């Protein structure tokens, strides 16, 4: 700007000099000073034009205009601050929603893996009669490795069971431990930042003995547990009591599997005898492979299918062979996202995009109105020589400034929305702490430009097209709305109504779904229960009975707290999703009966005393565990109704009572002593699965169930009349006293556990409610705005009508009918559209049909009511017009 001013000043001076010199020459030739000056000026021509063209030689006039226009726009914005605010808030709603969803989608779907060329990584699974199995036996992997030509490297890994604790320099921390093949990091294309990692000696790239006691630490473990000590290599660290030698530290960004939920460590797979078998007892691994650069996924898939035909033949057990007769190769990236989450995210993203579009349409309507108000101004500029392009540019820049404002506010909205829903996003969509980052800011830029164009282009072109003369001839403040413009604006309102309906219908369907889910009988009480999910540091209790050492004293102390009615333990509370155990029969053979037994899967739970008191489980038959069931007494189990149904193919609990289903110890068969009524176990939407329960006090060290049931994870459940917020801190300090590792125990309430178990429907219904209500409000403000403008511009006409004898009622109805017409058209269009778009959410519905007429009708009624309410005020105002004043106010 300063450069421009200086240059213009110089040019002006140059021009003045020129004229002065010419004048001097003319005087010298004998002209009178006055005539000389006049002559010189005339000869010179138009100084302004000279200045303008000369200055233009320096370029940048375009920028100059932009700056001019921006200043002008800024003044306009300040002058009509309420209009500016309305537009900015409207845009911010749309942009905020779209931004928030983009951030989430980007986090989940567009995230690039922290590996070299992550796109070449594939997950290889076996599949067969019962679907895909990610868990593959070592012998099969070995075959793939020898025969497949599509891969550069095939690595495998499996998660260490339970809850491993790593003892650091200052206390133990819970980690995720993966057993990995020694070539896994090579397959991922990432080298340790420190140390060599696992050795790949003797050309044997599979797991081997030389790495058995080596560990590679993640950067976060290295920092948190060892203070980023440089001399960590070669030192011995203990994981769950086992000593390992540190051979490497991975780079900071590295995580495997991705993303990390807990600090990670990797130890080498130690192959055992059982690894060279193909039985149901053989250990299994997940397989990740790197495609050769030029090999396509489909090629690898075809090759693997051919190989697998041979591999499957080597299974002697036909039952197992049928489970692995083909192979599925899929991009590793894709394998990380559950299809349901992907669909939920895309639906929400679409919804937010729709809301954004509605906001833009709304603002376009506002800008069109404003265009009518500013007709004179634009016409005047046109009359003074502004080109049509220049006017469009200027109006577009105004739109851009407004959308920049909208974006800034929208960013705040987006952050707020993400904060508000962070718990739901984390629980239901696995999106932890998403905040707008680099890519999101680029998206914001695109949104800003997009909003400006979508909302301001049309109004700008319309305004610029206005013919100058008739507008200038009109008296001030009496700009009229042409019929076509009114039609344009009502079209915009109808568009908003239709699109809002689409959002509202999906929102309605999900709300009905959530309502239905909330009314599913869960089969247990959820009130007044506090739940603590403990990761058990079982290495501390090696050689001792953890029941006596930890659980019994813990329960006793918990019961001693004021207000606590009962307390119990179980491997996992219903709907807990913390530590799921499965039960299957150890059956052999391929007879129809054996296959049925082998296919049988049940949920397994070890429960403590008083579980029934805490949760109020109902018994259909027999009894629950009681104090008489102790370590030495007859082992007993309890099953649920679904178990009976599937096991004995009848509803009669008597068929299973007293049966022997599993043995805690050799020669000590347990018997069924009771049948529980069904409960929801994983999700309120899922029917009950068969379940079998054992009693914690009956499990002692030596039982094969002991380690898995008692030494890994345990949920503490407390029924108390007290408020959870006061009880939880007391429980936390109590539990931390037992053993320091338990200080990290995650406490929540059973109500919250249930809430979190509603799944993606929960977060979808909430976000869609936010989007839908916003859309509804925008839409109503659109109706209101249009009618208010209509009334104020037709004041005279209405005055005349009243003067000629129209009743107030007639006027009132006239205005309402305008609104009515728009709403009818919009609703019909919207419901038609919603009929098709509701398929997008059909996968998430529970207890309701995709084309639920009730929902659609309700939504239409809500919209109609709102619309009439919005039209009411302008209609009232129109009816109140005083004809005398209206006609006088010329």
């Amino acid at each position, binding site marked *: 700007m300063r450069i421009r001013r200086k240059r213009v000043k110089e*040019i002006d001076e140059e021009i003045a*000099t020129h004229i002065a010199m010419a004048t001097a020459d003319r005087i010298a030739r004998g002209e009178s000073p006055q005539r000389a000056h006049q002559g010189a000026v005339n000869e010179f021509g138009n100084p302004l034009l*000279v200045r303008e*063209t000369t200055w*233009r030689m320096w*370029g940048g006039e375009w920028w100059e205009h932009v700056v001019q226009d921006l200043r002008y726009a800024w003044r306009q914005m300040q002058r009509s601050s309420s209009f500016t605010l309305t537009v900015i808030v409207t845009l911010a709603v749309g942009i905020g929603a779209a931004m928030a969803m983009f951030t989430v989608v980007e986090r989940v779907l567009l995230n690039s893996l922290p590996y070299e060329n992550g796109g070449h990584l594939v997950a290889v699974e076996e599949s067969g009669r019962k679907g895909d199995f990610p868990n593959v036996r070592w012998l099969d992997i070995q075959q793939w490795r020898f025969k497949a030509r599509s891969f550069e490297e095939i690595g495998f890994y499996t998660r260490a069971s339970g809850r491993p604790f790593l003892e650091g320099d200052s206390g133990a921390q819970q980690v995720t431990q993966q057993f990995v093949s020694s070539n896994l990091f090579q397959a991922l294309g990432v080298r340790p930042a420190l140390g060599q990692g696992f050795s790949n000696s003797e050309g044997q790239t599979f797991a081997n003995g030389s790495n058995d006691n080596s560990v590679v630490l993640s950067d976060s473990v290295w920092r948190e547990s060892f203070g980023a000590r440089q001399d960590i290599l070669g030192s011995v660290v203990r994981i769950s009591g086992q000593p390992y030698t540190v051979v490497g530290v991975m780079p900071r960004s590295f995580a495997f599997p991705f993303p990390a939920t807990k600090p990670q460590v990797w130890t080498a797979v130690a192959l055992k005898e059982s690894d060279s078998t193909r039985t149901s007892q053989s250990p299994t691994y997940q397989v990740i492979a790197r495609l050769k650069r030029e090999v396509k996924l489909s090629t690898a898939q075809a090759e693997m299918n051919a190989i697998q035909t041979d591999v499957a033949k080597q299974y002697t057990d036909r039952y197992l062979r049928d489970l692995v007769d083909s192979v599925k190769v899929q991009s590793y990236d894709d394998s990380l996202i559950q299809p349901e989450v992907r669909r939920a995210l895309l639906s929400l993203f679409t919804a937010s995009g729709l809301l954004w579009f509605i906001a833009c349409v709304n603002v376009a309507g506002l800008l069109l109105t404003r265009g009518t108000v500013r007709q004179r101004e634009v016409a005047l500029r046109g009359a003074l020589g502004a080109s049509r392009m220049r006017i469009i540019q200027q109006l577009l820049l105004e739109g851009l400034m407004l959308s920049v404002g909208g974006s800034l506010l929208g960013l705040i909205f987006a952050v707020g929305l993400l904060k508000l829903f962070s718990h739901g996003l984390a629980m239901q969509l696995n999106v932890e702490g998403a905040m707008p980052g680099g890519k999101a800011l680029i998206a914001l830029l695109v949104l800003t430009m997009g909003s400006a164009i979508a909302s301001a282009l049309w109004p700008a072109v319309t305004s610029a097209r206005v013919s100058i003369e008739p507008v200038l001839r009109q008296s001030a403040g009496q700009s009229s709305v042409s019929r076509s413009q009114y039609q344009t604006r009502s079209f915009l309102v109808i568009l908003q109504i239709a699109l809002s309906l689409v959002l509202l219908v999906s929102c309605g369907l999900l709300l009905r779904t959530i309502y239905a889910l909330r009314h599913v009988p869960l089969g247990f009480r959820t009130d007044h229960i506090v739940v603590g999910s403990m990761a058990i540091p079982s290495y501390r209790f090696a050689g001792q009975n953890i029941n006596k050492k930890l659980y019994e004293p813990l329960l006793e102390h918990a019961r001693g707290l004021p207000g606590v009615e009962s307390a119990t333990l179980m491997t996992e509370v219903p709907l807990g999703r913390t530590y799921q155990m499965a039960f299957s029969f150890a059956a052999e053979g391929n007879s129809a009966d054996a296959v049925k037994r082998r296919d049988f899967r049940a949920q397994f739970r070890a429960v403590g005393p008083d579980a029934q008191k805490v949760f109020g489980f109902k018994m259909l038959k027999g009894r629950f565990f009681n104090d008489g069931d102790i370590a030495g007494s007859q082992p007993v189990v309890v099953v649920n109704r679904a178990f009976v149904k599937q096991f004995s193919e009848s509803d009669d609990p008597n068929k299973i009572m007293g049966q022997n289903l599993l043995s805690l110890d050799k020669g000590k068969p347990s018997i069924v002593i009771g049948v529980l009524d069904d409960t929801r176990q994983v999700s309120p939407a899922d029917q009950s699965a068969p379940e079998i329960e054992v009693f914690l006090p009956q499990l002692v060290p030596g039982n094969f169930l002991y380690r898995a049931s008692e030494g890994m994870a345990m949920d503490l459940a407390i029924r108390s009349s007290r408020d959870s917020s006061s009880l939880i801190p007391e429980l936390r300090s109590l539990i931390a006293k037992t053993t320091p590792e338990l200080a990290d125990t995650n406490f929540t309430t059973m109500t919250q556990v249930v809430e979190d178990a509603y799944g993606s429907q929960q977060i979808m219904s909430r976000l869609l409610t936010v989007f839908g209500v916003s859309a509804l409000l925008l839409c109503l403000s659109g109706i209101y705005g249009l009618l208010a403008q209509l009334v104020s511009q037709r004041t005279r006409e209405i005055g005349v009508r009243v003067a000629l004898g129209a009743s107030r009622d007639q006027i009132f109805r006239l205005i309402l009918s305008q609104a009515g017409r728009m709403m009818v058209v919009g609703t019909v269009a919207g419901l038609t559209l919603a009929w098709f778009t509701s398929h997008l959410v059909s996968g998430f519905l529970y207890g309701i049909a995709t084309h639920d007429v009730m929902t659609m009708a309700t939504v239409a009624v809500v919209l109609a009511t709102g619309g009439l309410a919005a039209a009411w005020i302008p209609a009232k105002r129109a009816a109140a017009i005083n004809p005398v004043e209206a006609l006088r106010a010329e």
Partner: protein
Amino acid sequence: MAKKDQYKNRIELVQGTLDMLILQTLQWGPQHGYGIVQALHTQSGEVLKVETGSLYPALHRLERQGWVRSEWKRTESNQRARYYQITAAGKKQLVSDHDRWQQVVKAIAAVMQVQTSGGE
């Protein structure tokens, strides 16, 4: 886009000719805008009268291209004026402009020759 139509040189000098003439005038020493107009007028036998609306944009264009540079100085009559001076790059440009112009003149002359002789 707008630039082209902004100002039409009313003497309709062949594109680039004005630049050449200005550079040629500046060969004899620094000169201000008014001086250049006068010089061209005299030297052309009072035929060429350069419009200020062409001259000043041309001068500034030449300065932007680095073919002339300018400074404010006092004239003999103690008038402050902006003097333009040809640069080394400007001299090179003048030579090439001159060559090209001569070629054009020759070419046009050749065409006109053919036409006149053909007419006889």
